[in-house]
């Protein structure tokens, strides 16, 4: 029951995000979709992921997109592609969704419900991150630092020194 509500919220937010004319409205609906998904994670017993989702996506990624929108001027055009490529796009999307849905529906492995895994406690997640997944964690840290420096370098004003 709750799952249905949050799933509907997520999908509604996502659909609004890609179809609204105003970019800021798009981002606000995207935030709704992210929040709905976080609630789904909480329902699935992934507390850490749910809160991390809100912290990272709502608190950081969405705000970053908002900053970009305000730093670029968006002429009020709707910004869809031409009619022919729009039709083609719609066709491809429907085909992809059809394939995914058919696969899920006909998969034999999904027919009988398994008992859910126990919830992961913070202790377990922390231990796993620090012991077994220590190297990936370091790599992610390096990647984030590199991305931070790279993003700052790319977005920085280029010097106006032309000969």
């Amino acid at each position, binding site marked *: 029951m709750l799952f249905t509500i949050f799933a509907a919220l997520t999908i509604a937010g996502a659909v609004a995000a890609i179809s609204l004319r105003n970019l800021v409205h798009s981002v606000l609906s995207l935030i709704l979709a992210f929040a709905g998904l976080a609630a789904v994670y909480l329902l699935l017993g992934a507390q850490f992921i749910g809160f991390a989702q*809100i912290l990272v996506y709502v608190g950081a990624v969405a705000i970053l997109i908002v900053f970009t929108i305000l730093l670029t001027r968006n002429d009020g055009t709707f910004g869809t592609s031409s009619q022919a490529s729009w039709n083609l796009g719609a066709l491809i999307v429907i085909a992809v969704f059809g394939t995914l849905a058919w696969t899920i529906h006909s998969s034999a492995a999904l027919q009988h419900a398994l008992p859910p895994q126990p919830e992961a406690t913070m202790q377990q997640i922390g231990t796993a991150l620090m012991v077994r997944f220590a190297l990936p964690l370091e790599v992610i840290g390096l990647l984030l630092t590199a991305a931070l420096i790279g993003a700052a370098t790319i977005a920085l004003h280029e010097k106006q020194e032309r000969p």
Partner: protein
Amino acid sequence: MTALAYNSLHHASPQAADQIFLIVQHWIVSHAPAGLQSLLAILLSVVAIVGGFGLLFAITTILERKGLGRIQNRYGPNRVGFFGSLQPIADAIKSLTKEDIVPQTADKLVHLLAPILLVLAAFSVYAVLPVGRNMVLVNLDAGVLFFFAIGSVTEVAVFMAGWSSRNKYSLLGAMRAIAQMISYEVPLILSSLTVIMATGSLSTVTIVEKQAGFSRILPHWFLFTPWGFAGFVLFMIAATAESNRSPFDLPEGESEIIAGYYIEYSGFKFALFFLGEYLGMFAISGLAITLFLGGWNAPLPFLTWVPSYLWFFAKLLTLIVAFIWVRGTLPRLRMDQLMNFAWKFMLPMALLNLITAAVWHFMPSGPVRWLVSIVLVVVPYTLLGRNQMHKSHLEKRVYRFAE
């Protein structure tokens, strides 16, 4: 359960005084039909939180206006009630009866949703704050993470308010507020990580429990360790910035951008913003108390008979008074000073503080550990502070007038 509650009510022992709210809650819930009991229990807790902190908000507004008045050598409000003590009620009636003005070009829906989202986010973080022994709405396994996650929703509300008003000042204020909140969220989270490292838990209840007990007269609060002291100071500075209070009140600097992101709000919606801002301040002070000041634990061994929630609120009021004092005595920072301070002083200090906490954890207890930790805190502080001082040229200011 009820019999037990009645029993402990009859013998008015310190335990009964400590758990009085829980006993009352059990008593009310036990009269409800069985199906509704758990719902009613949650509802009662929510009502208690909203009522209690709403009352604290009213007290703080009068305290702040009186306190600022005293600092600025004037009276402050003194017309309504005894020495102006009923001023909050007058303010509430005023804000409820004022006309609600929405700009014609404003984005009506977003304009309406922004204050609601802000207040909702501000209230939901109280769910994980333990205000007394056994007095927490939900003991989440990831409580501190929940606090920061919901706290980051505030940024979205601020942006919604600033953008939907269609006013350049409100947009500027919102951008300033978001930039400041994001910058100071980093040292805020990093400085609280030290406590999480020390306790090995993200649950606020466990963190408070780990700070119970005394060695002779000194309580086991994290404030009384070198890294805890540094962490507390960093946390409170970042918290001041996070709640947009002076000296970090650039987002609403009245003399530059009038009132920042809530210029275009009036009447009840403005009151909601006001409420949300103060609730945010209380919540973050409450987290500071939970993390560093021992939560609801008594400060001295012979005072443990005082009910735990009184200690929490005493500490909270102390921090609020400190906030008011800082507001009354410090001038506002410039934008570049604000950012430099966040990234060049707060961030390195918070990172070094993590190392200090780790060193403290792994060294055997004794005076050597204290010495090493203090050196690890004081030396970077001096060096970084001196570096910052050298950058700012303290010379006679030359004024240039606009041509």
